[in-house]
């Protein structure tokens, strides 16, 4: 048997305007989001997700320069006027292309388009990339093999508020991670009891109010204690009075905090840095992990 020859191919990301000009309709519109388009760290997630879309051969498109902020941070901050201006502008664009199905890697964009655009005339099937990846894996379109092996590596998933509590999506990201055959450990505060990373509600763009600690540090401490199996470190955590952590202790080296949200990504990575563990623990998005495991990075 000849070993697989890695060849790489450049992806030309299909633009919605070009498809429309050819009178074609995509199966899904990939909503990139501002973080996915501008934030250097999250651009890597966008690129990983596009590799997956390309790899499975789904007919997709992006809006490119026609995309604009969904208005989520404006709405959470109380600026309803700015939110609706943004929403209507985007709805005009999306309806102009007769978009039916949207996939996005940002839980904030997901929540806003799915739940808040209908009242303003935007009705679409909106899917978060965690659900989409789960479907691809379940349908066998992504085999989760041929690339980096995550077997036995410790991974803990940090629930994004706007995916979890806000929209009840707890299992899809966990099923995606389960496909990696890794050693999944749950934080004490997970699923409906998950602790916010501290960035929601427009906190991403402001300094926190005076307090004892930053929220992302509190959450990073929990993630690190969970990954290292130091249950006693978790006993001081407040907010939940049940469930215990996985037994330990373990070394942290090679452990992963998995996220499914650009803001969680920033906050968790900063929190890990604050605890000076960035050389041992990495923060990855689901799409990056799947793209690596599938061996399609180039």
């Amino acid at each position, binding site marked *: 048997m000849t070993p*697989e*020859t*890695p060849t*790489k*191919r*450049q*992806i030309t*990301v299909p633009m919605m305007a070009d498809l429309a000009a050819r009178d074609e309709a995509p199966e899904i519109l990939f909503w990139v989001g*501002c973080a996915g*388009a*501008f934030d250097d760290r999250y651009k890597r997630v966008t*690129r990983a997700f*596009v*590799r997956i879309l390309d790899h499975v051969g789904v007919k997709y498109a*992006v809006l*490119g*320069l026609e995309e*604009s902020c969904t208005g989520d*941070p*404006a*709405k*959470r901050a*109380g*600026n*309803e*006027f*700015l939110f609706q*201006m*943004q929403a*209507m502008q985007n709805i005009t664009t999306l309806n102009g292309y007769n978009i039916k199905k949207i996939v996005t890697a940002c839980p904030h964009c997901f*929540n806003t388009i799915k*739940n*808040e655009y209908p*009242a303003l005339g935007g009705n679409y099937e909106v899917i978060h990339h965690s659900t989409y990846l789960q479907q691809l894996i379940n349908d066998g379109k992504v085999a989760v093999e*041929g690339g980096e092996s995550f077997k036995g590596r410790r991974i803990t998933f940090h629930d994004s*508020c*706007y995916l979890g*509590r806000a*929209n009840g999506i707890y299992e899809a990201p966990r099923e995606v991670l389960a496909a990696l055959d890794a050693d999944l450990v749950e934080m004490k505060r997970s699923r409906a*009891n998950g*602790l916010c990373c*501290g960035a929601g*509600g*427009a906190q*991403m*763009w*402001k300094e926190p*109010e*005076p*307090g004892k*600690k930053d*929220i992302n540090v*509190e959450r990073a401490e929990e993630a690190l204690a969970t990954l290292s199996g130091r249950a006693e470190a978790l006993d001081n955590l*407040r*907010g939940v*009075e*049940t469930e215990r952590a996985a037994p330990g202790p373990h070394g942290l080296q090679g452990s992963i905090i998995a996220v499914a949200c650009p803001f969680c990504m920033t906050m968790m990575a900063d929190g890990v840095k604050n605890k000076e563990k960035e050389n041992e623990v990495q923060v990855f998005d689901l799409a990056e992990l799947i793209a690596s495991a599938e*061996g*399609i990075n*180039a």
Partner: protein
Amino acid sequence: MLQSILFLLLLIAAFGLFAWQVRKIRANVLVGRDRDMSGHPAERLRKVILVAFGQQKMFKRLTPALLHLVVYVGFLVINIEVVEIIIDGLFHTHRVLSFLGPVYDALMAVNEILGALVIIAVAAFWWRRNRKPPVQRFTGVELRMWPKLDANVILYIEVALMVALFFMNTSDLKLHQMEGVELPGAFPISSLLVGLLPDNVTVLHTLERLGWWLHIIGILLFLNYLPSSKHFHIIISFPNVWFSRLTPLGQFSNVDSITHEVKAMMDPSYEVPAPVTNPDGTAVAPTSFGAKDVEDLPWTSLLNAYSCTECGRCTSVCPANLTGKLLSPRKIIMDTRDRMEEKYNSPLIFHPNVYGEEAKHEPITDLANATLLRGKVTPEELWACTTCNACVESCPVNINPLESIVEMRRFLVLEESAAPNSLNVMFSNIENNGAPWAFSPSDRFNWADELFVAEKASVA
């Protein structure tokens, strides 16, 4: 006969006073803005059965859930005996339900066991609140003064009611034993206590009547205490759960008046609906964007305030509060109730929280004109919220503190332009660049440059 008439008058007075207090509270709730909560009766009923009757969300924390369950079931079952007491009082009968035979035996036995368990549970509740230090969530700037006293008063009343019940049963039992007559019903606890009472028929008779009257008077007093107390939740949490929002927690309310404005801006031919008019034809004064005071909040948020048991589960899971910020979701709900009663109607006992240094408040000199926003809730509290919905998720009776927080943020931003400066920068970035960061919109598609994928062509 005289006793029956006295009893009837007492009942009328107690229920009349209660109705008068409830009307005040109803009026308070109705000062809130309209919000259509009709429809979906099956789903609402399901929620009432699971969350309110079934205590589903209480069981996120096992110990308090079990303690609360004892008191809750005790309340429900012992109230059957209250029905008997009322009938006996009105018609001068004695233990009128005893015709139920074995069912009555079981009922009395269950009552007594529950009564004893209630005393134990209440003692545990008291310990959780009054030990040093207490359970963390029973502390905080909002839980001083009246709310702190109120929580203990409720526990004392509950014990007093149970003691009166046992007094009544034990003396009645002993009285019958001494007269050689069998008392209908089974009394597993009281039968252990008969030895404690004197062997004097007259005294026993007096004690039995005393226990009977103390129990029913205690209940009627408690009924009229409820509207002043967090214990009002035993009634209001049911309608509050019925009127829960059924939309995903992430869906924030739409401001329709702004929708009309934005549509008119984008499309000059859009016809804004005619403004609502008063019955006499004059235009209704436009309402502010967002909430400055209680009447600017939707009525459901005001109903929330009357359902709050001040348990603090919301605050104990709030990421801002956990990390030492000023925000406490419970405080916002309690402040809303205080402010309603300060500005509109108040029940019999009314001691609103007044904040000072400990809540970073300027001393308030003009209480009547100090609105909910700034008078009680400071912008620092509001801006600390991450809108994570942990408070909403944790509330055992489906209170939504987040909605009130966002309404007040809307007022700060849209009416006062009083957002923190960094948020104003974010707003102008969105306006100018279509992104919350200061990136050039023309760079939006740069992420797709030089993007390669590994081809997994299996070479034969």
